[in-house]
């Protein structure tokens, strides 16, 4: 008798927990179906915005050559006067997804941050649309070759208090330059 009641009790526990989990999963699936398109559209909009910022006139997406440049490369676009590369170096708070425009001579046309998770007020400046952010990204325009932040003996001034983020952005830019150099 006692054994059965224990069994019934355990069954009740399992069923309750299972039900709660199932309902939660169902609710999430429903919310996801509503938000999915918007999230994707938002991402596409940001990518397009970044692309037009670094590669005037935009470009066509082309296949990425299989070269190891040390940083993950998400996409590669070919435009009239150059390439735009979407790279994803890791910063302080996680991955920084950024677009780098490079002209056919291997000079940087522009740098634009698509998404990041850096600290507000510090690393986030790299992606801000503020004067500080513009100034930081502006340093890269026209540069070529292998870049480094001033702390490592290079020409790029780090965002104050955010060496890791500045280094990550520089890594991303270098990877883009290396990739385009490889395209010939």
């Amino acid at each position: 008798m006692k054994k059965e009641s224990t069994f019934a009790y355990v069954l009740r526990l399992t069923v309750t927990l299972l039900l709660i989990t199932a309902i939660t999963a169902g609710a999430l699936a429903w919310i996801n179906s509503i938000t999915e398109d918007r999230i994707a559209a938002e991402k596409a909009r940001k990518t397009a915005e970044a692309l037009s910022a670094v590669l005037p006139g935009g470009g066509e997406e082309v296949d990425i050559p299989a070269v190891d440049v040390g940083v993950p490369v998400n996409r590669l676009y070919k435009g009239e006067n150059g390439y735009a590369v979407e790279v994803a170096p890791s910063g302080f708070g996680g991955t920084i997804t950024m677009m780098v425009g490079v002209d056919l001579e291997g000079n940087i046309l522009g740098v634009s941050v698509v998404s990041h998770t850096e600290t507000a007020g510090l690393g986030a400046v790299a992606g801000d649309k503020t004067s500080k952010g513009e100034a930081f990204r502006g340093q890269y325009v026209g540069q070529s070759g292998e870049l480094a932040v001033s702390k490592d003996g290079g020409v790029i001034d780090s965002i104050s208090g955010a060496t890791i983020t500045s280094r990550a952005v520089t890594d991303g830019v270098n990877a883009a330059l290396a990739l385009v150099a490889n395209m010939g």
Partner: protein
Amino acid sequence: MNLKQQFKEGLLTKNPVLVQLLGMCSTMAITTSLFNGIGMGLSVTIILICSNVLISALRKVIPNQIRIAAYIVIIAGFVTIVDLCLQAFLPDLSESLGVFIPLIVVNCIILGRAEAFASKNGVVASALDGLFQGIGYTVALIIMCVVREFLGSGTFGGGILNGGEGIRILPEGVPAMLMVMPVGGFLTLGCLIAGAQWLVKYLDKKEKAKEAAK
């Protein structure tokens, strides 16, 4: 329990951050701009109200042995809903708070209130408790943000006002960068909690003096 009492408890005498010392990870990590503080505070408040209501409604259905597991699933569900909605409708905020949105799941405030209040009280009282505790948390975050932003960047309202740059109060070069860095989080929260402890004691003394006078 009366409303005024609950409000006062949430805001000061039982403030989740300043007195109960819960949820300190997010309190220190994201309070570098006002935009973040308000966004995080509101997200937590919404999740807290929802989870308190649901847990209170289900308090007689959920067997005791598995209650913590059930609470965690419910809370994680609400957190994911808020996370997805932020990504879809407020992408800037979602980006800026990053991993600390999913980490609300393990924010002790929410599980703490579920266990200490919602599992023992009715739906309406639990909803109000969620609201007031949430407000208390938000207020603590906002104070942290304002202090750290002022001392660290010399601005007010970063991320919202003046096209995201915030209104500059101190001239460039004067503010101590340190305060928006991790160090500043510890120092500001330490001083803030000390201030809250002093205030609570002071109010307590005044109350006692009043009673003695009667």
